[in-house]
């Protein structure tokens, strides 16, 4: 049976792809601490679209309820000069406390959570469970003809798992986008 088409493996070119040259494109993960006030996410996202920067992934949630601080993690790509410029442009936004380029912070950890729905019968089910076990994915929903797996890891690991599920009967994927934090005792 045909699995519904998903995004093809290579990331699609963004309509806002930087015109600065396709050479030396790097992917960076930025951590942005902001005041959790109305419109702050729109400011950040609007900055990216207005200035033609790429967003590969974006996550946001309040991390300090008392101080109303939210942490936004943005994965972006571009030449090093553009990445540096993105950091400075973000710092110009008034409600922003701090911008950290975690990719320059060599010891950063990145994780993403995905829920993957797979449909199949017979041997396909066995194969799906076997692969899930190898990837330490958990079954969080099951019917006689489907599973939903929960999987945590870096983005590459999730890509790989999704690719393996495709021939088995991949139905759909929901991903959180990347969350990231630096190693060691110090905050960013």
């Amino acid at each position, binding site marked *: 049976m045909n699995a519904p088409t998903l995004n093809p493996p290579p990331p699609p070119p963004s309509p806002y792809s930087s015109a600065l040259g396709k050479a030396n494109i790097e992917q960076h993960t930025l951590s942005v601490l902001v*005041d959790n006030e*109305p*419109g702050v996410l*729109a*400011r950040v996202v*609007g900055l990216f679209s*207005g200035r033609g920067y790429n967003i590969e992934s974006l996550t946001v949630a309040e991390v300090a309820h008392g101080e109303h601080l939210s942490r936004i993690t943005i994965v972006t790509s571009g030449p090093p*000069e553009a990445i*540096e*410029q993105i950091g*400075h*442009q973000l*710092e*110009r*936004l*008034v*409600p*922003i*406390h701090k911008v950290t380029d975690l990719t320059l912070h060599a010891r950063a950890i990145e994780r993403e959570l995905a829920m993957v729905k797979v449909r199949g019968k017979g041997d396909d089910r066995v194969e799906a469970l076997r692969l899930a076990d190898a990837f330490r994915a958990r079954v969080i929903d099951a019917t006689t003809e489907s599973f939903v797996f929960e999987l945590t890891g870096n983005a590459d690991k999730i890509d790989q798992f999704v690719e393996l599920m495709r021939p088995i009967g991949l139905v759909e994927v929901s991903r959180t986008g990347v969350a990231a934090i630096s190693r060691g005792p110090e905050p960013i």
Partner: protein
Amino acid sequence: MSKQMTGAEMVVEALKDQGADTLFGYPGGAVLPIYDAIFQQNFVKHVLVRHEQGAAHAAEGYARSSGKVGVLLVTSGPGATNTVTGLTDALMDSIPLVCITGQVPTHLIGSDAFQECDTVGITRHCTKHNYLVRSIEDLPRILHEAFYVASSGRPGPVVIDIPKDVQFATGTYHGPKNIQHKTYQPQVKGDLAKIRHAVEMMAAAKKPVFYTGGGVINSGPEASALLCELVKLTGFPITSTLMGLGAYPASGSNWLGMLGMHGTYEANHTMHDCDLMIAVGARFDDRITGRLDAFSPGSKKIHIDIDPSSINKNVKVDLGVIGDVAHVLEDMVRIWRTSAPQVDAGALKQWWKQIDTWRERKSLAYRPSKETIKPQHAIQRLYELTKDRDTYITTEVGQHQMWAAQHYHFEKPNRWMTSGGLGTMGYGLPAAIGVQMAHPQALVIDIAGEASVLMNMQEMSTALQYRLPVKIFILNNEYMGMVRQWQELLHGGRYSESYSEALPDFVKLAEAYGAVGIRCSDPDKLDDAIMEMINSPKAVIFDCVVEKAENCFPMIPSGKAHNEMILAELSDDAGVEIGSIIDERGKLLV
């Protein structure tokens, strides 16, 4: 000091506490409570404009000529959207504005109510910051924060959107003391080690140049004074962007004139050939750099700016110093004085000799005429007849703006108000009204084009209502002159829609508004006519009928480098096809 009062009264109280005694605005349903509070006090003077765009530009003119924050007050919906051009203009040129907009009551927000629009959504991209006030408790803090954000760091416009129910609500007002913003604390002091390094680079330079911009003006008169001192100490040549004119006096011996697309030959060649460029409060705009990959190829570059994102944005520099221009220049002057560096006097002398050969090209020269008034001549005469007075100049946008920048010479900062970054036609008249409000005794002249000035001509009524004797000096060539010039250069002389058809009779128009109208087309009568304008106690529209086909030179064509300028003499030469100067790549650029 905390008192109980309504939100509308808080707005007026905050304006008082911030020293904002002048307010440009237009009433409407969603700001009626604030207008009622204005009615019941005497501190804040309200200037009723005729269109909200005019309020924004008037507030800009007020801010730029006085160094204070400009304030405007408009209603919800169309009132707010009409300010968008002015807010964007202020953002591009870093002008401190606080724009207070009315909003429909909180419970109606999102219901497509009458005169509702998403003001904070619409203005998010054209303000430095904006606020929607959801509760009366937040209002005093936001009012004072807005003034702080607008005026500190790199200045810019701030919008405060206040729903009508918040204006009616009663709460506790707090004064502006102890305003300590949680997140926004721009760095004003420069890193001393870097400044020392900059001084060492300057001392070692053989072919240096100062390239200064609007940041020097924004940093205040002390910054301009310190700049002059540093130029005197070092003996280096200095050029400036359109925005920075007046920071260093045009009569100063080290002055090269403006640089960039319509800058002087000597300024652009000095930039191209220098070995050290010291950029001060300037942002390497495309109108300055020309072709980026051929921009000053052999130089080391120092960049002083308060906005870290300006550094390395368009041009990679060797040393970036983040800080307020006045603070950094103060340190620079002090370190230069105490270290008393040995400059290479021989090399500097050689450099000045080279610059003198560029000066000899007399790139601002034009062919004079006895029959028609040349626009450059008109500006020169206006300058000669007004230079000894307390004069402020605003402009619209186009050829007249460039001629004004080239031929009107500024000795002091804050005397020159022009829309640089956004290039807003219709800026000059409302800006002149704002300037005149800040300087009631001064001579305020809007150097205009006949096309631009019509974009906000309605503000003549404002000038008349407040007896503001602004002078509108129109260089009337019956064309959107810069559009026509580009069509000549780029589009085979096909003048698509750039002829000013069906112009009003400007003399009668002036009279219809209750102002004075003067027309002059004879070069011999020009001086007398200008004197008549200057001596008139009322607002004047001066219709200066100039040579229609005149082009604005010198010019760096799009896509070319600083050393590939077109001069007027070349364009006059028979046999040079002017439409062939710009290549296909250049035609794609703006």
